[in-house]
Structure formats: structure tokens, C-alpha cells
């Protein structure tokens, strides 16, 4: 009979959600790693049915307090696809600017307050603030610049309310964006300092041969648009998502796990975006990446913190560029045709990775069906594969340290506020006569 060692963890700091991890060990190898996570988007899918399509951006933005823009953007793109319209020109640019704000605030929170303590031997961001006060101050100010973009464009910092299908309810004047440009000059310098700071951390020499999945756009680093591509040859339109990606139930978790063409887990998020779109980054960001010790492809999930910092730098540069070229559009949104029975797909790059939405609309514009696949659910299999491969070398550690190593490996993915682990209960089954 298998004996199991159970470690109760009352509170997993610095990761959000609710979950548990079970490791099964045989012959000093981890043969199973099972992560249980809570996944509220399923609740929202039910909530969306029977509502008008125009309500989707505001309803879905409530799924996550950290990446509301991602939910709004995937929703509006899916609805616009269903209606057969495109918001181009400055409306498209403003959406990209809004996304820059979200990348800056979300990535910076994760880098400074959630993940950096793992590398610097600090128990928490609070302890880090005592030992590295200047760095934490910089992180807080940098995050605030991202929040400020959300406030100016989205109407408020959390759960923006200014986004609608077709564009915005109100678009800013160039004068309203000017203070942001000034803040972004400082933010770009702070982002460069962030890249240097995290590049100096000690990283475990652990990597895996991931199948990376991200959007790819003909001429820009992807946020709102592009083909869905993978490092193993996938290259499909967003509307073809369901033909290649399947969500499956696994017995130990409520969350559905995604699979690509029946293969093992794949990786979405900063490492994937970066590897598949390095050539779309400006030359000086590419140079910063090389100077930070990551080449065009990074397969070490712990170095994801460097890639996040590089994406913050890119978002600052891109936001500044968009503001410099901004001219207020005559209309805040494109005209929308009368609804018809239709299906719309949308996929955008949330800070933590690809976020897919699919909606079916009735003739009067009512949502008949909704499917939302958040990045953390897509990455769940990959998190388990990381733990299966990496945790074997940690098994001799005492329970508390083993738990911390597992938590840090999960934190590499920046699991979403609504989609991941908040209370990690770790159980280790070491098999008969062991443990």
C-alpha cells in the first residue's frame, strides 16, 4: 500500500486562484504531477449566454482583475469577426496602447512583487522591500505607468469601462495622452534597468523542449492580431483554433486542459511570444535581450522573468510610438451592422499568453454560446510537465523546501488571478516502503 507524505500549505503567497498539487514518486522519479486549479471563466461562459453581444467586453473584463484588457480585447475581436467589421487606423492603435498598459502593469507586478523574491532569497515582496528598497520603488512606479494608461484609455485602472465592440465609447485627445508620453520616457529607462536587474539573478539550469504557441503578425510583435503559430509548424487563422486545439477533462481538476493536435502540453506566454516573434522586436530590444543573456529562443522557464522585463521595455517603446503618431479619430467606434446568426473567434496575447474566445450569436445579437480558453488553462499541462521533469531532483529536500521549489516552478507561469493556485496543498505519494 502506498504511503503518502502530505504537506498542508495554508496559503500560497504570490500566486492567485485556488489549487492543489499532487506528486506521485516512484523509484526517485516523479511519475505524475497533478495540478488542480479553479477556473472561473467557465462560470462566465454561462453568464454570457442570453446576453447581448455588446455586453461581452464589460462582462468578460470581470474575469480577471490583472488582465481585464485581454478579456475585453479577445471579446471585441470575436464579436467584430461575427459582425464582419474591423476597427482599424487609430482605433486599432489605441487598442494596442491599452494592451501595452496591461503588459506593463501585469508583468511589472509579477517581476517585482511575485517572482523576484524567489530569486533573491526573500520570503516575500515585503522582505524584498526591506533589502532592495530602490528596486521595489522602481517596480511600483513602473507598474503605475501601466495603470495610468489603463486609466486614461479605459476610464479606470481596474476593469476598464471605455471599450466597446467597434472601438471605444470615447477616444482621448492628443493632449490627454501627452502626460503619458512624459511618464513613458521615464518608464522606458526604468524598464531597461529592470532588464539589467533580473538578468543578474541566478537561474537554475533547467529547460525543456517546449512547443511554443503564440500569435504572429506580419510586421509587429503580437498583441491583438495574427495567425496562431507554433514552433512545430502550426500556422492557422484564429477561426481554425477549434480544429487543432481540444480541451479535455482530467479527473483531478475542474479546469479543462488544452491539447494541440493530440500532442503533449504546449507553452503559451512570454517565452512563446518571444521565441516565435523575436524578429518582430525593435533592434534595441533584441540587443537588450542578447545583453541580458537570452538569445532569440529561451527554453528556461525561470528566465521567463527576463523575457517579461524585455516585453515591458517593448511595451514602453511601443506605447510611446503610438502616442507620438496619434491623431484623434473622427468617430470613437466604427458603425456596426445589424446582427445576424453568426460565429466569431478572437485571440489576443494576454500577459500570460494566448486568450481565445468564441461566440455564437443569434439573429437579434443575443449570445447563444460562449467559449473562453484562458492562458493558464492552456499552460496547465506544461506546468505539470515542468514539475514532472524538474521536481525529481528536489525530492531529497525537506517538505517545506520542496513546496517552495514547486511553488516557484508554478510561479514561472504567472498563473492568472482567476485561473490558478492560491492555496497550494501539496501531497507527495512516494510509493510503498518509501517516504
Amino acid at each position, binding site marked *: 500500500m502506498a504511503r503518502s507524505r502530505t504537506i498542508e500549505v495554508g496559503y500560497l503567497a504570490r500566486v*492567485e486562484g485556488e489549487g492543489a498539487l499532487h506528486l506521485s514518486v516512484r523509484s526517485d522519479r516523479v511519475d505524475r504531477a497533478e495540478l488542480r486549479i479553479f477556473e472561473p471563466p467557465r462560470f462566465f461562459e454561462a453568464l454570457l449566454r442570453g446576453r447581448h453581444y455588446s455586453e461581452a467586453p464589460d462582462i468578460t473584463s470581470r474575469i480577471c482583475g490583472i488582465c481585464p484588457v485581454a478579456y475585453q480585447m479577445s471579446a471585441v475581436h470575436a464579436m467584430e469577426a461575427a459582425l464582419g467589421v474591423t476597427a482599424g487606423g487609430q482605433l486599432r492603435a489605441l487598442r494596442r496602447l491599452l494592451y501595452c498598459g496591461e503588459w506593463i502593469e501585469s508583468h511589472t507586478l509579477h517581476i517585482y512583487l511575485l517572482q523576484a523574491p524567489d530569486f533573491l532569497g526573500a520570503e516575500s515582496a515585503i522582505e524584498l522591500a526591506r533589502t532592495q528598497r530602490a528596486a521595489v520603488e522602481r517596480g511600483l512606479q513602473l507598474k503605475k505607468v501601466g495603470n495610468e494608461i489603463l486609466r486614461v484609455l479605459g476610464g479606470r485602472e481596474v476593469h476598464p469601462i471605455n471599450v466597446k465592440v467597434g472601438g471605444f465609447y470615447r477616444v482621448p485627445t492628443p493632449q490627454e495622452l501627452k502626460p503619458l508620453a512624459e511618464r513613458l520616457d521615464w518608464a522606458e529607462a526604468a524598464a531597461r534597468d529592470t532588464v539589467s536587474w533580473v538578468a543578474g539573478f541566478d537561474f537554475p539550469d533547467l529547460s525543456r523542449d517546449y512547443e511554443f504557441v503564440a500569435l504572429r503578425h506580419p510586421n509587429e510583435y503580437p498583441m491583438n492580431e495574427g495567425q496562431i503559430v507554433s514552433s512545430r509548424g502550426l500556422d492557422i487563422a484564429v477561426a481554425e483554433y477549434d480544429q487543432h486545439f481540444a480541451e479535455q477533462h482530467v479527473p483531478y481538476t475542474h479546469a479543462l486542459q488544452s491539447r494541440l493536435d493530440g500532442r503533449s502540453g504546449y507553452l503559451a506566454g512570454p517565452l512563446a511570444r518571444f521565441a516565435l516573434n523575436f524578429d518582430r522586436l525593435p533592434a534595441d530590444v533584441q540587443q537588450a535581450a542578447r545583453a541580458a543573456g537570452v538569445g532569440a529562443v529561451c527554453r528556461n522557464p525561470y528566465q521567463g522573468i527576463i523575457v517579461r522585463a524585455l516585453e515591458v521595455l517593448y511595451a514602453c517603446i511601443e506605447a510611446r510610438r503610438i502616442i507620438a503618431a496619434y491623431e484623434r479619430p473622427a468617430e470613437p467606434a466604427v458603425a456596426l451592422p445589424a446582427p445576424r446568426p453568426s460565429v466569431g473567434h478572437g485571440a489576443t496575447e494576454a500577459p500570460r499568453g494566448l486568450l481565445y474566445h468564441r461566440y455564437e450569436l443569434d439573429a437579434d445579437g443575443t449570445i447563444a454560446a460562449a467559449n473562453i480558453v484562458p492562458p493558464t488553462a492552456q499552460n496547465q499541462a506544461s506546468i505539470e510537465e515542468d514539475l514532472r521533469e524538474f521536481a525529481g531532483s528536489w525530492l531529497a529536500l525537506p517538505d517545506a523546501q520542496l513546496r517552495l521549489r514547486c511553488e516557484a516552478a508554478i510561479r514561472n507561469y504567472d498563473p492568472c488571478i482567476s485561473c490558478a493556485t492560491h492555496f497550494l496543498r501539496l501531497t507527495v505519494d512516494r510509493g510503498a516502503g518509501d517516504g
Partner: protein
Amino acid sequence: MAERAAITVIGIGNPQRGDDAAGRLVAQRLRDHSLAGVKIIECNGEATDLVDRLRRAASAIIIDAAAFGAKPGTVRRLDVAAQCVPAGRARSSHGLGLAEAIELTRALGALPLPCLIYLVQGSVWEAGAALSPPVAAAVPRLADLILSETRAMRALSSLAGGSCD
């Protein structure tokens, strides 16, 4: 750093989640009193936002709904300048909640003085739910308590030769 606002009252909560709205409702009541030298803010409790607001306050009073095992509607006062805040099961952004925000501000050497927290024990937290009757009854009581606190703070400030206006 910019000059700190004299007294900042921060009502925390999600207005659409039952008793979680209590902090914000107290803040809204206080707005009706046009208190000179008192800045009243409502927010959702995101930790870095709270840190930012606390850093800009000379003294602060925070109002939040919480679960601390008491009878619904029970009010608890904490003087966090004098004691650390026990980190509980934080429910806000990425595991960083009110306790973490307070301690982070303290670690940065920027905690307002005094810094008081008024907690009200809630019982209903579901999305779309209304305030429970005990918490609804506690809201005006809390507003009165905060009014008394701000008066006391202003009086102390005057004695010390400062001015809140």
C-alpha cells in the same frame, strides 16, 4: 515626494459582492459631510494601488469588510502603526491584499501615522448579492466612528501646531 494629504480615508471593496461593498459605502456616507482637510477615496483594494495611496497620506483610516470569525456586523479597530497586520487568506490581486499592502508600505518607510484600519465582519460575498442586514446596520455606525476619528486626528494635529486645512 509630493506633499502628503493630511488625513486620507480609504474605503475598500467590490460594490457588487455583497458585504464587500461596506468600506466603499462608508466612504460615500463620509463624502456627505464635506470634511475639511480629509481626502476620501474608494478603491478595490489592489495592493500596489493601496501602497501608492498610503504613501501620499500623512495619516490614514482604512475601512474594509473582512472575515475574522466574529458575528456579522462586528467592527474591529486596528492601529497598524503599533502592530503588524496578520496576513490572512488574501483575496485580492495575485495574493497581495490589505495586510501585504500595509506591510509593504511599512517596509518602504512610508506608513502614514496614525494608520488605522476599521474592519467589519461580513457574511455575504457572492457576486451580485446585496449587503447583509447586520453589515447594512454597521455602515452608519462605522461612518460615525470614522467621523470621530478624523475629529480627534485634527485636534491632535492642532495641538501639535500643524494644520489639517
